[in-house]
């Protein structure tokens, strides 16, 4: 037995003929923030639902908090905090009652849940909306309430499925701040996202999923080092002209990618590649040297074509 909070071996999930997860190995260690990255339909949410004990696995081994979800679902769920992809707050209840009732589902006493609700309203910055209904809240407020609700049982492990999708930058940063605080307190986080900046900000370690399989695994830095270069030089041309310039700059980069209006040169030193390109008479409309990000890794691993 390892000390992993989540351990999966050859985990598979089929819906009829469709295989959503095709055999993945995952280990999530206590206290870390672990990310599932991948395009839509990669199998992230199916994996999360299996870990959350609300979707029985088709095959493979899975242990969550050292227990088997097929046998001990309720006991495991008692120690999880789940933030679903779409808010499913109770629209018939007030903000405070949402927290209150949810705490009661976890078997907390009336007194405990009353104190907890007050604390969480503060955490979510919703104290002055406590007796409002849920419907009129903004998207960011609903998301914060959903996260607050998932904390009502002081979970050891939080499952966040695309926690900031659809939020404005202010709301995202506030949520990240809240998630950092939780991590600091020792809560283990598992999240899915397709925002690469979010993954870089939050995740200690992540896996990239594509077509139901894990195609890469490591820390954000590792993955950038392994699948990209340190820097990226973007040379932008009038659409269609980039192809003719390709041969001139090809050998300046470790790897070159051609998009409809630009060339991407993956290199350790973007500035040097840029001046070398100028020397060879390449005159782009504009150019940009930037650090490689997880997004470059992601696009390299999962391709640029639309998935669904």
């Amino acid at each position, binding site marked *: 037995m390892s000390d992993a909070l989540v351990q999966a071996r050859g985990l598979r999930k089929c819906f009829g003929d469709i295989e959503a997860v095709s055999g993945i190995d995952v280990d999530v260690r206590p206290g870390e923030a672990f990310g599932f990255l991948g395009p839509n339909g990669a199998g992230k949410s199916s994996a999360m639902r299996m870990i959350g004990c609300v979707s029985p696995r088709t095959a493979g081994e899975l242990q969550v908090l050292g227990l088997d979800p097929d*046998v001990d679902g309720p006991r495991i769920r008692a120690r999880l905090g789940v933030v679903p992809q779409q808010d499913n707050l109770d629209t*018939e209840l007030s903000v405070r009652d949402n927290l209150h009732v949810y705490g009661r589902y976890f078997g907390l006493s009336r007194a405990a849940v009353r104190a907890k609700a007050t604390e969480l309203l503060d955490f979510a910055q919703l104290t002055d909306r406590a007796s409002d209904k849920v419907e009129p809240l903004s998207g960011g407020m609903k998301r914060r309430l959903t996260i607050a609700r998932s904390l009502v049982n002081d979970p050891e492990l939080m499952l966040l499925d695309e926690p900031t999708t659809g939020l404005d930058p202010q709301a995202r940063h506030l949520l990240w701040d809240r998630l950092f605080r939780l991590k600091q307190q020792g809560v283990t986080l598992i999240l899915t996202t397709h925002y690469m900046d979010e993954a870089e900000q939050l995740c200690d370690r992540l896996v990239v999923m594509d077509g139901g399989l894990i195609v890469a695994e490591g820390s954000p830095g590792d993955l950038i080092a392994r699948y990209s270069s340190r820097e990226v030089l973007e040379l932008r041309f009038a659409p269609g002209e980039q192809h003719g310039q390709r041969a001139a700059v090809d050998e300046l980069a470790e790897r070159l990618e051609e998009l409809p209006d630009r060339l991407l040169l993956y290199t350790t030193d973007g500035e040097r590649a840029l001046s070398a390109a100028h020397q060879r008479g390449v005159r782009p409309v504009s150019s940009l040297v930037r650090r490689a990000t997880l997004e470059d890794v992601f696009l390299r691993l999962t391709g640029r074509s639309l998935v669904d």
Partner: protein
Amino acid sequence: MTGVIEAPAPGRGGPLLRILPPALYAGRARMLMLRSSLAYKRAWLTIFSGFFEPLFFLVAMGEGLGSLVGDLPGPGGRPLSYAAFIAPGLLAASAMNGAVYDSTFNIFFKLRYARLYDAVLATPLGPVDIALGEIGWALVRGGLYSAGFLGVMTGLGLITSPWGLLALPAALLVAFAFGAVGMAATSFMRSWQDFDLVQLAVLPMFLFSATFFPLSVYPPGLQWVVQAFPLYHAVELMRGLTNGVVGWGLLGHLAYFVVMAAFGVVVASRRLTALLLR
């Protein structure tokens, strides 16, 4: 309001719970009822309105039509005024209506649109908790309608026996059974159009289950059909209890609802499992 059904802890459930895997039940169904009571905190009027429907029927038909009809043979052959004849039938119908409305429309909305149960299943609660908790609330609602109507019957002197006291617990069982089957049926519905089928089941039952006229008016073949309706058994049960004509036959009616309730809970739980824990 809560705690009407005290759910047993996992592992020591009755035969009903042995059919259902223990991982699907946390023994906290009453928390769903707590939720419903909070949700209705500001909507008591909607529940209250359901109480008037049988009262209007009683006044319009019992007093109005009753003056033309005269007396009818009640349980044991004793003649009853028309109002006294239909009142127990309306009592049974109000238990049915309260439970059916709650377990069909409301549950369909929570299941398909509000995604309430997805949120509930992320907690230790399982589909069996949801089924029992929601059917339990349907029982509360049906029970409230029945209690209100029993009060009216008492006021009008339509309850002639102390056995009538048992009409309330009997109404709760009837409400539970209708709630259970209503929820099971709702789990198969795909759109709001399917609810026309609920009307198609409920309205004829309301009219023809010996509610407004005795079973003897039907030809023998049709009598068998009517006796298969659940509401017929509820009507007979209420009529026997409120008039103090109590025999072993009443146990048969009770057994009908025990089986119906168990069937509904098992089907509803299994369907919720299939729909939500995919």
